């Protein structure tokens, strides 16, 4: 295996992947777990992925594992979970995390891929393994839900940086 090539790719992408995973989960520790698992799977397939698009593959693993985690979690008593939302995080991060918590995991995945990773609708559809129509509808639903339910986020968006 080309460990040097893999390491260089990870070095260049890991922070962005971690940031995306954080937006998907709202939890740094779980984001790290998701990214770690995705990178391990990329490493196992590096020979085939190196000349392709390992980033898209990693994003797919992260997004799907996160959705699977949510589905599993429904069946577990809520007492066993404690939101690891960092009370130390900056206010903007807190507002965004709270806003994204209003979305379903699938809506959040579309929103992060489209508006943070800047993927096209087709690229987003490919990563998530869904149709472009699903990406469009999930994106619209996510934005509508943020509009009605996350006014503090809108306030941040409308603010001059």
């Amino acid at each position: 295996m080309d460990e040097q090539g893999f390491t260089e790719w990870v070095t260049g992408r890991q922070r962005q992947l971690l940031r995306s995973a954080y937006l998907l989960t709202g939890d740094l520790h779980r984001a790290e777990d998701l990214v770690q698992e995705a990178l391990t799977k990329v490493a196992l397939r590096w020979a085939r992925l190196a000349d392709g698009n390992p980033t898209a593959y990693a994003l797919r693993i992260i997004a799907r594992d996160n959705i699977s985690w949510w589905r599993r979690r429904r069946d577990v008593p809520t007492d066993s979970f404690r939101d690891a939302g960092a009370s130390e995080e900056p206010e903007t991060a807190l507002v965004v995390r709270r806003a994204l918590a209003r979305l379903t995991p699938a809506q959040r995945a579309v929103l992060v891929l489209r508006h943070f990773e800047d993927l096209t609708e087709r690229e987003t559809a490919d990563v998530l393994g869904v149709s472009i129509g699903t990406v469009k509808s999930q994106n619209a639903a996510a934005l509508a839900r943020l509009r009605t339910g996350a006014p503090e986020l809108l306030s941040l968006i409308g603010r001059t940086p």
Partner: protein
Amino acid sequence: MTDLHRVLTEATEHVGSPDLAGRALAGAHRRRVRRAAAGALAAVVLVGGGVAWAVQDRVPHADVVDTPVPTPDGGTVDPADLPAVPAIDPGAVQALWDPAGAGRLPWVDLGLPESLQPPVETYDPPIESPPLVSMRGARAVVARDDRLYLLDTDGTRGWYSLEWPDEPLAPADDYLALSRDGTMLSFAGRDGLWSREVRSSRWRRVDYPDGFRAGSEYGVSIEALVAEMAYLSDGEDRWQIDVQTGRADEISVPPYVYDVELAPNGVVLGLGSAGRGPYFVRALVEMIGSRTSVTRADALQSLTGLAADEDSLVATRGVSTPPGDAPDDTWRNGLVALDRDDWSTRAYLPIRDPRWAYTDGGLLTSIAWLDADTVLAQVVAPDGAYDAGELTLFTWNVETGELRKVAALPAGQRFDVAIDLLGSLGSIAGVVQ
């Protein structure tokens, strides 16, 4: 949506960059070894041993920075000079409630059936049928498939249906509204606002006002329908539109106000945030005619979903302390009822919200005050279910802490109820067990 990209980027700037490559390589090697030699876990070879796991530096949470708050006249005021909402009074905190059990609350008859579901198999006749045009109003409206279903007001609790106008809906969550007295119905179409008297046989349509962003990515919502006046939001601005004439007036609020509630006495209440950088000041804003008063509300932390009457305000409150670290129940998420005279806490209903989904996820919201002490609210449970759960309408008596189920329906189904037609708890208290 470059602005959204900018905010998402800003929100993740504190995320560090630990060395994940070495650990991934080690993990990959472990799995290869497992595959090659099942049961020989003791022989796992760690390639890249001594992996450095850089503990990322989290940005410490600073105190809220005081930054000037803009005033409606274009000036600024130092937040330190603003009156402040007092912190939650521990004496006003009620028993901890788990919203997951909302569906099992005792039912109270406020004029709605316990299951707010029109019949599936035997639809009642369309309201346009001649014998039914005398129907004066509706207690509730539910949107399902391609029809609207209205619960009558004549005491028989029958359901009647009618067709939508032939126009696509606006991209919105709250596109449907029933007036407080149950006589008017409105929905936000793609190109205009449709409305009808419930007993009428036709829909009317008025154009959205100039400047109204009907195609806004954040969608259109009907925030209230009072008599023949609809209050619409296009995601950024709010408008008051006469559904008969189409006359529209923009509701002017300070630019930093993001959440607006129109109290029955015409007072506009809002939640605002101001400041630059990652920190800002939260504020409660009250507008009575041309007078605006601003009260700093940081002590309450995050508030959303206001509902007001002449004397009180209720909102969903979210705190930034993880539930496991809450030193007491004032540090839990919940519903807070405030006295509008001095913003003191009338009551606080702390909830079990381990995933913050009920509050931050928007699953628990207030709707209106039914009387001086009773709040109508809704919750979708279980948390995390979103559109797959059950929505329960319930009452919260802020004086006694008593919670009652009013009605329930599948989450995700659009509906509205005629607030003024819901019976007063006080008037039927004798039959509540």
